[in-house]
């Protein structure tokens, strides 16, 4: 207790220096917390709009579909495989899908688009799609219909109630032709998807593409999305050989690579900030020990072991770092929360760049405590590393020389 009391009082002997050092920790940590929040918020948003709302965390296909995603590699999906997948504790639901492409036509205009056959009751009740309807209604299993995306509707000049013709190729080369009434329009955050996608009821899609009883993929909805890797591994162990199971990282390696490469550049920035913190603490620790050599000499003379002096100075430096860390966390969290509620929205060229990569032009900030625990911990570890050399100096103090200082 005494050591903590002395350490706390000691750091205020030179108030200015303590505040400057704590200030360097404060600003650097605040920047790093906001940066981490922006990075993780952006990645989470990318994953949410691409994975959670669209592809799903895990998909099951006919073996070979991932490498050659054509209707020829579609699968028959029976109760046995369905029961097996649902037997996993983390699997909540199975969402059957048919994903293919077709030429669409309305009036004088034509456009190739992605056509996705889904179970409306499962697919359109998800928050990711449910909240994005901007006009009309979702198709349902009874009446069918077509749900198209906003940019596509604008390009084709289609409104709710119009009918779009599809001309394409079905299973085993059969011609796929049909006319479908638009029941609703959605706006998707992913610009690429928003400019050319149509959802239809899965039985309609099976009929259009001559795929009775067949699916291209089954999306596994999970109770805990963060457990997707473990769940994939568990299910892959006993999956029949004619199927393949892939998580989103394997399904969309380009998204993962993009996140990883962006994350690397963020890590370099963080490293620079931490080096600044490290040298600030190192300098203070060096001064605090160098100017108190005589004091330490006296302490050793009267019977204080060097190890206790080392603990004392370590506590002092940890206190200074903690002052900066606590102040930084208290100041950063309101800013992070504000940016979480009001994400940065890009406009102009920046927005175009984002959209060119297929992402919504916003930069949300993550509001998840686990993202922010690491940074203060790193600052504490840096503090401990930065004081090693000054503490080594205490270990080597020669009492007689110290007393003469």
């Amino acid at each position, binding site marked *: 207790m*005494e050591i903590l009391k*002395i350490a706390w*009082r*000691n750091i205020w*002997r030179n108030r200015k220096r303590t505040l400057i050092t704590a200030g360097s920790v404060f600003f650097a940590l605040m920047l790093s917390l906001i940066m981490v929040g922006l990075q993780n918020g952006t990645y989470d948003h990318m994953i949410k709009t691409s994975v959670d709302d669209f592809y799903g965390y895990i998909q099951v296909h006919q073996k070979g579909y991932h490498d050659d995603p054509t209707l020829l590699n579609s699968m028959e999906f029976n109760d046995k495989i369905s029961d097996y997948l649902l037997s996993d504790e983390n699997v909540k639901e199975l969402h059957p899908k048919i994903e293919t492409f077709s030429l669409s036509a309305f009036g004088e205009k034509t456009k190739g688009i992605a056509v996705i056959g889904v179970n409306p009751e499962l697919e359109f009740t998800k928050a990711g799609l449910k909240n994005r309807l901007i006009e009309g209604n979702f198709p349902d299993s009874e009446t069918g219909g077509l749900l198209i995306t906003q940019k596509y509707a604008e390009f084709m000049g289609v409104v709710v109630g119009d009918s779009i013709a599809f001309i394409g190729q079905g299973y085993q080369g059969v011609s796929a032709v049909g006319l479908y009434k638009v029941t609703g329009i959605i706006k998707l955050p992913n610009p690429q998807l928003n400019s050319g996608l149509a959802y239809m009821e899965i039985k309609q899609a099976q009929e259009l593409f001559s795929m009775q009883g067949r699916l291209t993929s089954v999306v596994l909805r999970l109770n805990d999305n963060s457990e997707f890797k473990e769940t994939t591994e568990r299910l892959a162990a006993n999956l029949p050989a004619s199927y393949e199971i892939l998580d989103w990282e394997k399904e969309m390696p380009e998204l993962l690579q993009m996140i990883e490469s962006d994350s690397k550049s963020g890590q370099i920035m963080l490293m620079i900030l931490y080096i600044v913190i490290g040298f600030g603490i190192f300098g203070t620790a060096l001064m605090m020990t160098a100017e108190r050599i*005589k*004091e330490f000499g*006296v*302490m*050793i*003379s*009267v*019977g*204080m*072991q*060097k190890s*206790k002096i080392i603990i004392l100075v370590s506590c002092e430096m940890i206190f200074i770092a903690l002052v900066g860390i606590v102040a930084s966390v208290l100041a950063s969290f309101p800013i992070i929360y504000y940016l979480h509620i009001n994400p940065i929205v890009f406009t102009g060229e920046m927005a175009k760049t984002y959209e060119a990569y297929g992402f919504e032009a916003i930069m949300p900030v993550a509001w998840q405590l686990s993202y922010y625990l690491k940074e203060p911990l790193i600052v504490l570890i840096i503090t401990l590393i930065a004081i090693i050399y000054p503490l080594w100096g205490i270990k080597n103090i020669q*009492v*007689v020389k110290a*007393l003469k200082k």
Partner: protein
Amino acid sequence: MKIIEIKDLYKIYTESEIPVNAVNGIDLSFEQGEFTAIVGPSGSGKTTFLNMLGGLDKPTKGEVIVDGVNIGLLNSRQVIDFRLRNIGFVFQAYNLIPVLTAKENVEFIMQLQNQNKNDREARAIEMLQAVGLGDRLNSRPSKLSGGQQQRVAVARALASKPKFILADEPTANIDSASTNNLLEIMQELNKKENITFIFSTHDQRVVNKARRIITIDDGKVKSDVKL
């Protein structure tokens, strides 16, 4: 009863080109309850001698035996622990811990000795009252005069009940009135607690109060007078 025995003590500094014999063969012993002044000109070897007596410096040759323990043979941790339990120090520049109050400074060494809080507090108050600072228990060193700080240092040195106290020029930085007051306090505590005091000093007022005067010059004992 002998508490310190010094046998054939040498300290030779070899850092410079010409070796310096700071202590050049001293044989002495000190009895329990002595009030001894070590005098001599600057550079005579007083402080080096005192440092070796307190285990702060290792002799080049010879032995310092305190209560049967040759402190030159102890490792650095053991010698620090030995000082904690057996030796009190009073420095010329007081050297109190600036962030602790007078009472906390006196308690500090007892805390290092792991004494319980109640005993520590009671002893600290008793010692500060004995040096006439019962009304300044909660003052920090910066709020005390030089003389008062040195009295706190004496209380600190005595509080842990050491076998002897080494005081290096304890009156060098304080005024005459404070010097007389401090010497009277130390004499009284010497009699009351039977603690051995060994001073190194230039101050004639300290010498006048001493009951044994050892004169050192060129690292050797020139005279040893018991009064």
